[in-house]
């Protein structure tokens, strides 16, 4: 924030004429490079006068009163920490005019208070510097700033700098020696070099994990997959000391090393409760950084982490306060810690900072006193979305958790779906020339232009997705998959790719397939794709899938960047997972679907959809009351189950443990990101019914005059090619 033409608002207009000669005077005597004051033209002055009123308001708001009578106290606009000027710079510029008694800079404010020991010095400074544009890098690190100066009766009482720590935070300065610091840094350096290939280079920082891999997205660890080697031995001394002194009771088993270049940071977050115990330890190396702690009630405590210091977040500071590092190149720190004066703030440049964060993984659920922030406790208390019991409830659920979501995410969604799935393409290209194809739930229309020798008509429930198709020159309309306004038997072929799994009752799923068949002519073929509950069938095709997995790993680092830990929304009370980049892929058990996501992308919607940031939830696999039994496969059924099933929210990289679930979609809104008010990720939940093996076939067999020509598993989906039998 700059203050412009400050003279206007304070009535120091008359100083303008001093500037010219006082300038040259100063230049000659002290500065190595010429500096020029800039006199305003009449036109400029006129324009500026109009701003006076608003500037006055600002002043009032800031509570700064100025005086027209010369005094020892100067108010210097645009010489503040808020616009990148450090205390040292203010000092070096202003001490030329006389002895300075005090300089006061306030965090985030674009001005400084300078107190001289004499009025004369203050007047001289005002005459020389007021309205001057500072252009020389020798003078100031951010050239182009203009100082505007006025006198004050007195410098306002220094605003006390918060030195308090959030409750539960332990700060241990100089906890290790400089030699030990070198050992840690040396260790990371060699690791960095050794593991260049597996190294996770997040966009905002470099990261390496030990003990357990920290999984961004769900922000947890997989306890069943410890990393080889555990915690490196270089950390033994530190951990022994922390244990011996009683700071921690349990030895950490997970380590994350982050390296931040100046200008890099980490968004405010609370480390997810359930994966880690109380007591998070962070060792700072190399350079200082200010870690901002924020309480949900709005309190903000910046804590300067000096090199070689250790912080331990316990209790409130671990579970309730968010912590983050604002990405900038310098920190406002108390001058006392750098040069001995008290209560003064200055700007200190950041160097490369390396942090070692130690955590102890947790086995049971978290039972902290902060249920609002606690993922373990939230699971049970969260507002539950229930599996519908009636047609009306089903329609409502789909409306909110399918239709509205696709409408909102259409652009982002479409941007992640470009590659058609090969087997769908195969079906389309096998159609005879001149065939009429209906793509019901066409999404962004990626299958509409595959075969140029047929006539393709697409439809989707999402107006925004249909619009994308239209812009691409496809024939499309908006409709519901349960009421397709096409004449009976007009289509030679139909496809329904990733649509039917968005219907929330078995009746509706069957109805959707029936609609497809109604539109199909006798003898015509339909291809149906639905997302599979089983995502581990890759054992069958391990080679192929392994390859894909490797590829994914390679790409993953990038998307992880986007994925940073859990991020807290402005008000601090709501925890959401951060945006996953549009290419985010999952790895691991969801190999099948991942693969679909990434290399060939998936489908669409009507809900089409697809499985990119798929996730499934763990949770109540035991009951499954309302789930309509499908053939023999009601595997989770339990007698006397609860009357209505709660839909669980799927978590990345976990298995589907129940067929009905909500899959999160993180909508990335804008590129711009203000790390302090993270609002750039919007979370949506899409409803899915994932199909068990055999379920699709059973469903199709319920429909008259249908013959299943072929059914197969492809990329995490169950698929069927159906033929409509001729009327007998």
């Amino acid at each position, binding site marked *: 924030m700059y203050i412009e033409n400050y003279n206007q608002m304070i009535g120091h207009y008359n100083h303008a004429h001093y500037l010219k000669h006082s300038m040259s005077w100063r230049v000659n005597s002290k500065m190595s490079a010429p500096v020029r004051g800039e006199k305003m033209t009449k036109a400029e002055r006129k324009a500026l006068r109009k701003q006076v009123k608003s500037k006055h308001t600002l002043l009032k708001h800031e509570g700064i009163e100025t005086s027209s009578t010369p005094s020892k106290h100067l108010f210097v606009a645009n010489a503040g920490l808020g616009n990148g000027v450090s205390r040292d710079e203010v000092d070096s510029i202003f001490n030329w005019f006389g002895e300075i008694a005090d300089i006061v800079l306030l965090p985030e404010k674009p001005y400084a208070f300078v107190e001289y020991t004499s009025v004369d010095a203050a007047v001289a400074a005002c005459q020389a510097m007021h309205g001057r544009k500072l252009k020389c890098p020798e003078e100031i690190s951010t050239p182009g700033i203009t100082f505007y100066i006025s006198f004050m009766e007195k410098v306002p009482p220094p605003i006390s700098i918060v030195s308090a720590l959030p409750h539960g935070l332990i700060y241990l300065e100089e906890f290790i020696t400089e030699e030990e610091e070198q050992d840690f840094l040396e260790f990371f350096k060699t690791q960095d070099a050794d593991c260049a290939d597996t190294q996770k280079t997040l966009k905002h920082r470099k990261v390496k994990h030990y003990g357990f891999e920290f999984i961004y997205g769900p922000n947890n660890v997989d306890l069943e997959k410890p990393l080889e080697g555990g915690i490196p031995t270089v950390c033994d001394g530190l951990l022994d000391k922390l244990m011996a002194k009683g700071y921690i009771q349990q030895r950490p088993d997970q380590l994350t090393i982050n390296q931040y270049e100046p200008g890099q940071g980490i968004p405010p977050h609370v480390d997810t409760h359930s994966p880690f115990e109380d007591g998070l330890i962070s060792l700072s190396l190399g350079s200082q950084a200010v870690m901002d702690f924020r309480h949900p009630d709005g309190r903000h405590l910046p804590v300067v982490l000096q090199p070689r210091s250790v912080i331990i977040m316990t209790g409130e500071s671990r579970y309730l306060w968010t912590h983050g590092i604002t990405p900038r190149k310098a920190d406002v720190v108390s001058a006392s810690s750098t040069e001995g004066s008290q209560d003064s703030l200055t700007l200190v440049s950041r160097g490369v900072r390396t942090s070692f964060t130690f955590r102890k993984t947790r086995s049971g659920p978290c039972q902290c006193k902060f249920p609002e922030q606690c993922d373990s406790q939230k699971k049970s208390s969260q507002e539950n979305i229930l599996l519908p019991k009636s047609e009306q409830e089903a329609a409502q659920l789909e409306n909110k958790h399918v239709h509205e979501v696709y409408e909102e995410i259409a652009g982002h969604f479409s941007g992640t779906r470009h590659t058609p799935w090969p087997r769908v393409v195969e079906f389309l290209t096998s159609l005879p020339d001149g*065939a009429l194809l209906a793509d019901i739930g066409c999404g962004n229309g990626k299958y509409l232009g595959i075969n140029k020798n047929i006539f393709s008509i697409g439809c989707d429930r999402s107006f925004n997705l249909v619009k994308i198709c239209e812009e691409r020159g496809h024939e499309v309309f908006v409709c519901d998959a349960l009421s397709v306004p096409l004449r009976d038997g007009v289509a030679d072929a139909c496809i329904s790719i990733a649509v039917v799994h968005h219907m929330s009752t078995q009746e509706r799923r069957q109805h959707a397939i029936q609609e497809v068949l109604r539109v199909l002519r006798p003898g015509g073929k339909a291809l149906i794709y639905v997302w599979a509950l089983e995502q581990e069938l890759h054992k069958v095709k391990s080679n192929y899938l392994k390859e894909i997995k490797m590829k994914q790993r390679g790409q993953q680092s990038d998307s992880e960047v986007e994925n940073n830990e859990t991020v807290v929304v402005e008000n601090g009370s709501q925890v959401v997972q951060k945006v996953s980049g549009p290419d985010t892929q999952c790895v691991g058990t969801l190999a099948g679907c991942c693969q679909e996501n990434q290399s060939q992308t998936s489908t669409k919607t009507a809900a089409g959809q697809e499985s990119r940031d798929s996730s499934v939830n763990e949770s109540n696999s035991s009951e499954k009351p309302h789930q309509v039994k499908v053939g023999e496969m009601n595997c989770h059924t339990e007698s006397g189950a609860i009357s209505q099933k709660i839909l669980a929210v799927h978590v990345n990289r976990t298995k589907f443990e129940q067929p009905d679930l909500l899959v999160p979609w993180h909508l990335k809104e804008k590129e711009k990101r203000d790390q302090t008010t993270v609002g750039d990720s919007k979370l949506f939940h899409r409803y899915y019914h994932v199909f068990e093996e055999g379920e699709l076939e059973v469903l199709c067999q319920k429909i008259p005059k249908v013959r299943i020509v072929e059914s197969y598993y492809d990329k995490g989906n169950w698929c069927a090619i159906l033929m409509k039998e001729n009327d007998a």
Partner: protein
Amino acid sequence: MKLLTHNMLTSNIIKGVTKGFPLQIAATDIKVTEVDFNPDFISRMISKVEWPALCEAAESIGHLGDLPKELDPDYEKNEEFLKKAHHVLLEVEIKEGELICPETGRKFPVTNGIPNMLLNEDEVGK
């Protein structure tokens, strides 16, 4: 929306509507674009089209030209005819307007060439 697509649409998704075809067109913006002519393709399309409905639709928006309302039994060999059919089927597009259910008068808006065939909950048949 091309007239070929229009020929496939029906409003029989509305409760109580039996045929719902053809939908009447009230167009406020019609665009004519050139499309490559492929006689085989057009022949195949004609076989799928309800011919009288196509002519009715084309006539209602003033784009019938001299396309015969009776389908020539040997149309596949009649290139002149196929070209006219090609024009009506693929080159005339409804950009803005309404589609109207012939039985209930229910209007479906067409915007940017996209018909919106969504129904309100209480209109849905079945």
